[in-house]
């Protein structure tokens, strides 16, 4: 038997191959295994949390920031807390 060759071009597989070949490098959660970075995730520390907002004040998706789901949840929880205390914006207005 000859080796089976995949003829179909799949978008998902292409993306996977790009990732493996190191297009921009693999994304890594910056909080995993780093207690120092973890201690910054606090609703009072709004200066740090602002790194995880878009220009319009939305929470940056983990797809872009590269956080794992556990830390993304903790992060967004703290951003929402910070918003109720008016330390961070719900939306940024046009100007």
């Amino acid at each position, binding site marked *: 038997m000859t080796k089976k060759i995949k003829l179909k071009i799949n978008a998902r597989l292409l993306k996977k191959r790009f990732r493996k070949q190191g297009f921009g490098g693999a994304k890594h959660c910056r909080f995993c295994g780093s207690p120092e970075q973890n201690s910054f995730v606090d609703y009072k520390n709004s200066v740090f949390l*602002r790194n995880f907002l878009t220009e319009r004040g939305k929470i940056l998706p983990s797809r872009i920031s590269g956080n794992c789901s556990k830390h993304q949840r903790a992060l967004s929880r703290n951003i929402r*807390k910070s918003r109720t205390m008016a330390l*961070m914006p719900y939306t940024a207005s046009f100007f």
Partner: protein
Amino acid sequence: MVRYEALVLAVPEITADEVKSIESQLGKAVVEKKGTLLSFERWGKYRLAYPINKNDYGVYFLARFESTEPTAITEEVKNLFAVKLHGVVMRHMVTKLELDQSLAYQRPQSLEEAPSREDSFFKDTKSDSHMSDDSDDSDDQD
């Protein structure tokens, strides 16, 4: 023993006497429920991310306390801020602290520490924008 912290946002025109009365009333409420007030700090004046009760500025306070009666003390403190101090306190938030958690924390700079208006959200994210300098006055209502 459970440890809590309360972040309080007060109106900008708060007087020193009112600050003292908040602290004494909070201390009294905590002691009543068999707790101890660990700290009461004034952060200073801040520009709020959005106006609350038509106020663009506010003064933050952070209090830490612990008690052996967990639910009773939080209820008491929340009632104090929401009912008795309703005219002075705009927002309050009581959160639980882990006992092994360090009490050190980081906070943004207040207007009193840095008088320039660099706490604006746009100024630190879009510093290289091509907009004119007076553009941040557009959100002021005339």
